[in-house]
């Protein structure tokens, strides 16, 4: 399942097709096609950015991507249009995302090290179980988990959103890290052991520092998925002060009658901007990660 991003026998730029006798379509046609697809893909996003700086009453009448009239006030008004100022939601989401990343990195790397490097009874069985949990639909667990969190008084707290990340429940990240650790030479562990390191020091001093690329992939994927997460916050958070960004943005739909279109698209864009930013910053790790595990 592990793939590299370089072609096996030919360098990436080498021509694939030897010129044949048949008439070849000109090269630029392919670029026209690819650019056309690209424009369609980007159009909704560009339209959203454009709508976010249009006056609310012209969002659906001024059709062009370039606004006839600019209204940057949408951002200021949208920021304070909901029950709480928008920075509350941003901070809430940021706290949850940061702790989730820490949780995933710690718990998944511990588990991955055990699977990739240690010999112990039941290793294969546990690994198979881990792969099994990756396929388990989360909604089978949601009713009893909700009941449990209700009984211990965790509704309207962040614990239901955070605890799973500290318990290595996302097998994808473990799998990703196992794949990565497997590529490190076993001699490292042997050398560390000869120098008197136990498994914990070997993990902490030798393996962890080398796994930074896998950790970066995990962190970025965790950021994006937790930032976008809608179902769990919807289920567990009912106090608007605790709302995450997606829950906050959704509230604009309840105020449809007040025609706050400009404000709505402004805050929608604010909610997507961190994901887009992380994508641009961490592209390399994302593409590598997705090719390794098929994570999305």
């Amino acid at each position, binding site marked *: *399942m592990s*793939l590299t*991003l370089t*072609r096996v*026998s030919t360098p990436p730029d080498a021509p*694939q*097709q030897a010129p044949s006798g048949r008439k070849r379509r000109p090269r630029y046609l*392919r*670029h026209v096609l690819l650019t056309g*697809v690209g424009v369609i*893909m980007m159009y*909704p*996003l560009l*339209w*959203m950015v454009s709508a976010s700086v249009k006056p609310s009453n012209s969002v659906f009448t001024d*059709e062009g991507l370039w606004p006839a009239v600019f209204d940057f006030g949408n951002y200021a008004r949208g920021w304070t249009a909901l029950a709480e100022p928008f920075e509350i939601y941003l901070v809430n989401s940021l706290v949850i995302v940061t702790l989730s990343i820490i949780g995933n990195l710690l718990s998944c790397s511990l*588990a991955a*090290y055990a699977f*990739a490097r*240690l*010999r*112990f009874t039941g*290793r294969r069985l*546990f*690994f*198979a179980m881990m792969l099994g949990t990756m396929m388990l*639909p989360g*909604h*089978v*667990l*949601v*009713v*009893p988990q909700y*009941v449990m969190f*209700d009984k211990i008084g965790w509704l309207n707290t962040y614990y239901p959103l955070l605890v*799973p990340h500290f*318990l*290595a429940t996302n097998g994808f990240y473990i*799998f990703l890290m*196992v794949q990565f650790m497997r590529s490190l030479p076993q001699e490292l562990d*042997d050398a560390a052991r000869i120098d008197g390191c136990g498994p*914990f020091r070997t*993990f902490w001093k030798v393996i962890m520092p080398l796994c930074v690329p896998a950790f970066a992939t995990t962190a970025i994927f965790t950021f994006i998925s937790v930032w*976008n997460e*809608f*179902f769990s916050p919807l289920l567990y958070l009912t106090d608007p002060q605790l709302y995450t960004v*997606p*829950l906050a943005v*959704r509230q*604009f*739909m309840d105020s449809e009658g007040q025609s706050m279109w400009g404000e709505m*698209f402004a805050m*929608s864009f604010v*909610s997507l901007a961190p994901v887009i930013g992380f*994508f641009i910053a961490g592209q390399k790790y994302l*593409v590598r990660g*997705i*090719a390794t595990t*098929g994570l*999305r």
Partner: protein
Amino acid sequence: MTEVLPRVRRRKRQDWAGYVFLLPWFGGLIFMIVPFVASLYLAFTDYDLLTPPRWAGLANFREMLGDATLHQSLKVTFVYTLVSVPLSLAVALGVAMVLDRGVRGLAIYRSVYYLPSLLGGSVAIVMLWRYLFGYDGIVNDLLATIGITGPAWTTDPDYALSTLILLHVWTFGAPMVIFLAGLRQIPAMYYEAAQMDGASKWRQFRSITLPLLSPIIFFNLVQALIASFQTFTQSYVISNGSGGPAGSTLFYNLYLYQKGFAEFDMGYASSMAWLLLMIIAGFTAINFLAARYWVFYDN
């Protein structure tokens, strides 16, 4: 899949160390196994969270047989899955193949196509979709410029689901990146040899690309089916929680949510969850069985 595990060199067993490292994961396992068993139990009970669960035998499942709303939600989920999954995988494979032929600016194209798949599940994008396709929305304005009168996409029950299918196709970038990585693994000499023998492009696709890529197509298919059956955010946001118009975007998981967490009929919600689990397991099993006939493993 267990052959993925590396062979660890023979040396003294380190049972205690392994278990210590796995402690958080063991906790997580309990955190999953206990609810798993509990939900199977609840599926056979009547439970509203306030009074203790009462054993109801097969009553929930009998009720499901006659629940027209449930049948509607199954239909919506099946139509969505069976149309959008093959469609987006086909687009992903097609675009990946065009990109694979050493296109200048590959990295830029790849980024542009991939970005939407990171955003497609977000509330903001589904809301945007609702207004792009709204009666007065920009899609109909664009259609009007080429002389087509578009339907009322989001309020016409015949069209509402198709907007979500289009949203799914919009996120083809994730499987595309996986296909792209897979295509890179196919040695170029196979194509060179085929060309020498005079094989057409189509023949090369059928006899080289498809078989060698089949494990990755299979992997993408299994993943996409499992994810698609669990669609929730899109359904909730596009209809503002109702599944409307006329139940046309009432996905299975939205109905489960309404039953379990609006009506607090948690026994019924649990039995629904188990039916979905069975359906997903069935589809996955069929996939794995069918894989014997079309998935080609080189070694």
